[in-house]
């Protein structure tokens, strides 16, 4: 195993990055007082120091506490929405592309129509309708409600190519049923692609939630990475030279995305051993 990991550098880098992030979250949760992620907890606008390694923001939040409390929140939004998206998307896409006919027409039609709805509109309508203050889980479900559309569309086109292949034809001649063909023949062949789609979905769900939060449509008191960026923007931290305020969320976001990315590259190599030749 260790030998394999040494050969598959991408997988290792990805696991190390995500592992570091997990370590940061676990150690942080055990040692850092996350109640300091709220306003008025610590002296405002302190650059990084021994007491506040990540510095503090303008309203007196300890940015280390914010990162410790906020990273899992943001990841939660991303993973809930990403898994929902790819899960539902893959099922629909396989069904549509394998069976074709009216099933395909309906599924593709629903996805096409759904894609025309501006995500912002849905979020604002939900935010306005719940008549109470938005929570992180509601935020995740809102992002998830639209996250299956793109995967459905792209996976479907992928399956379309595969189903005309010889091995599918052979499986069909061998008397395998529809679901069997989907799960035994098509799915394994698409794993690298599904993995890539999952990364894309998780990352685009995180991006979507962060984007909504930066626009001021997020849960105000939740110390997520996106809300932190909202405060950075609201207080014009960049032009005011408070670099530590945006450095921390930026680094965490980078680690999340790079970790996920290298993980996929590594998974690709497992799924497609030919690639190892190149590496």
């Amino acid at each position, binding site marked *: 195993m260790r030998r394999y990991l040494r050969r598959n550098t991408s997988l290792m880098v990805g696991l190390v990055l995500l592992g570091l992030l997990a370590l940061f979250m676990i150690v942080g949760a055990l040692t850092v007082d996350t109640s300091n992620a*709220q*306003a*008025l*907890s610590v002296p*405002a606008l302190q650059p990084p120091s021994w007491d506040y390694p990540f510095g503090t923001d*303008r*309203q*007196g939040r300890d940015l280390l506490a914010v990162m410790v409390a906020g990273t899992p929140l943001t990841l939660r939004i991303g993973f809930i929405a990403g898994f929902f998206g790819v899960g539902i998307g893959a099922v629909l896409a396989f069904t549509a592309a394998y069976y074709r006919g009216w099933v395909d027409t309906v599924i593709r039609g629903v996805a096409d129509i759904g894609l025309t709805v501006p995500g912002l509109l849905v979020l*604002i309508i939900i*935010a*306005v309708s719940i*008549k*109470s*203050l*938005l929570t992180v889980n509601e935020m995740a479900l809102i992002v998830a409600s639209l996250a299956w559309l793109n995967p459905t569309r792209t996976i479907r086109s992928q399956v379309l190519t595969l189903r005309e292949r010889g091995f599918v034809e052979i499986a069909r001649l061998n008397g395998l049923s529809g679901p069997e063909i989907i799960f035994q023949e098509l799915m394994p062949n698409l794993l690298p692609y599904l993995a890539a789609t999952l990364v894309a979905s998780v990352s685009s769900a995180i991006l979507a939630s962060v984007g909504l939060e930066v626009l*001021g*449509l997020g*849960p*105000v*008191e939740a110390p997520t990475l996106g809300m932190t960026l909202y*405060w950075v*923007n*609201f*207080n*014009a931290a*960049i*032009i*005011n*030279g408070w670099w530590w305020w945006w450095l921390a969320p930026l680094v965490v976001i980078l680690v999340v995305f790079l970790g996920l990315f290298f993980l996929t590259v590594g998974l690709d190599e497992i799924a497609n051993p030919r690639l190892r030749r190149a590496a």
Partner: protein
Amino acid sequence: MTKDGLPVDRRTVLTGGLATAASVMLPATVIPAPALADLPQIPREKTMVLIGINARDGRWVDYELWNPYAIGSNHQNGINLIYEPLAYYSAFANKMYMWLAEGYEYAPDFKKLTIKTRPGITWSDGTPFSAEDVAYTFNTLRDLGPKAKWGIDVNQALQEAVATDPNTVVMTFKIPSPRFFFFTTYKFDIGVPIVPKHIFQGQDWPSFKHFDAAKGWPVTTGPWKVAEASLQQKVFDRRDRWWAAERKLAPMPEILRSIWLPFVAEQQSAQAMITNQVDMGGVIQPATFPTVIRQNAKITTYTGQQPPYGYVDWWPISLYLNNEDKPYDDRDVRWAISHYIDRKQIVDVGYLGAASVSSLPMPPYPPLQPYFDVVKDLLAKHDTLAFDPKKGDALLEAKGFKKSGDAWMKPDGSPLTLEIIGFGGSGPAIGPVLSQMLKRRGVAASIGLPPNFDDRFQKGQYTGAIYGHGGSIREPYDTLRLYQGKSIAVPGAHLVNFSRWRNTDFDKIVDEVYITDPTNVPKLKDLFRAAMEIWLPDLPDVQLVQNYHRIPLNTMRWTNWPGTDNAYINTASWHLTFPLVLWNLKPA
């Protein structure tokens, strides 16, 4: 031929397909840009560039709308610059500037108002301005009623306006209206623009745009002509002649062109000031001023280069508590919340110390000072600014609230919660601070910034709200009216009453204030005191801080900006009195 027998090969289709897909999106690019008149060259040092306030997401969506009564138009976006009023009023200088009107007189019962307009004024197309235009403007507003801005207010008061001669308008009122002339006067955001009868007659006011460069529209009496308008900029060029300069009422503006840019974000606004691209910035937060001033010594503000970097706006910010919602229908609970709030910390953390507290829901302007003085002893007894958690605890305990651990429980055993909504600049700036402060005292407070704040607030679908609203600037009526539950003096009046607080004795006093001559200060002082004797113990909303306009000003090209030692007017480009700033500016 390819193997499929298709007449084209796949490479052609691939590239062609992409091009076709893209071209579906393209037809719109050929929609011709609107034809624009050539802009004459004007040197930068004769130009004044400013960043406005209300543009939505960095664009002037309303750039075609130059009729102040079109529903989509907003006086804050440049219309305030071009139409002139009967009079201007500066609350800072406590001074009236008679303008299109030369004088006015009420009948003793305030049911008749005679306005003398100035002779010899012409509209920008050469047509003489006369009392007919004034009568037409007001009669049309009365007829339009709810269809146009100010229509309801005019309709409630005005019987008829008649131009008895070219320079006299006689208005008769349905009810005594001692404040009608002041209502039409331009100050802050309130005032009635006078429109040209010969252009507006026969037009449908709500849908009339009044924008056509070929016809010289918009036609106004002021010195500014709309030279260009687009999503990106509104350009006003100075006309060669202006009646007010010829009469020596005002100097001819030295600015030859004023360019209004939409507000994008704080960073850009600050940067545009640092690099001298803009002469007057959009509103930025106190913390950003030191950054800007450090990099450009020419930047100043209303209070020079010192905090609070601005002046007190005409509405203080309060924490509104829904007086119809349990337990905030109980004044002791409202007072307890007030005692839990450390306003100094709000000023220090929310505004980095560059702000001040507010004891009453009106600004401390010079003309309002007597009214603050007359309730001094009442305020000492009912200190709306006191930070006294112990007293708050005592109030809650007396009402049967109990502490469970650190959290307050209502008499019924459920936790004491306070969901606060906020909006705009004040919500994010002080919302989290306020919510955290209350949590420390055991109130389960939370803060949100819902996109439909205004709707929820207006309909009373809130428990707590951070909000400020315009009221009095010269005498107490307008602020008192904000808390009136029912009016008899103004039949059919629609009342705002944001906090949903009701008191019939208070309502009666406000009605009496309504029919009192606004210049009768001694009587108004007595009435105000009587009203506050009811209002203060009840505390309909919790007083917090003054609202500041912090506008960066650049002295590189233009000087004589309004300031503490030169307090001729408030600086805001979006207020109706902004023309005064433009004609006072001097080249550096």
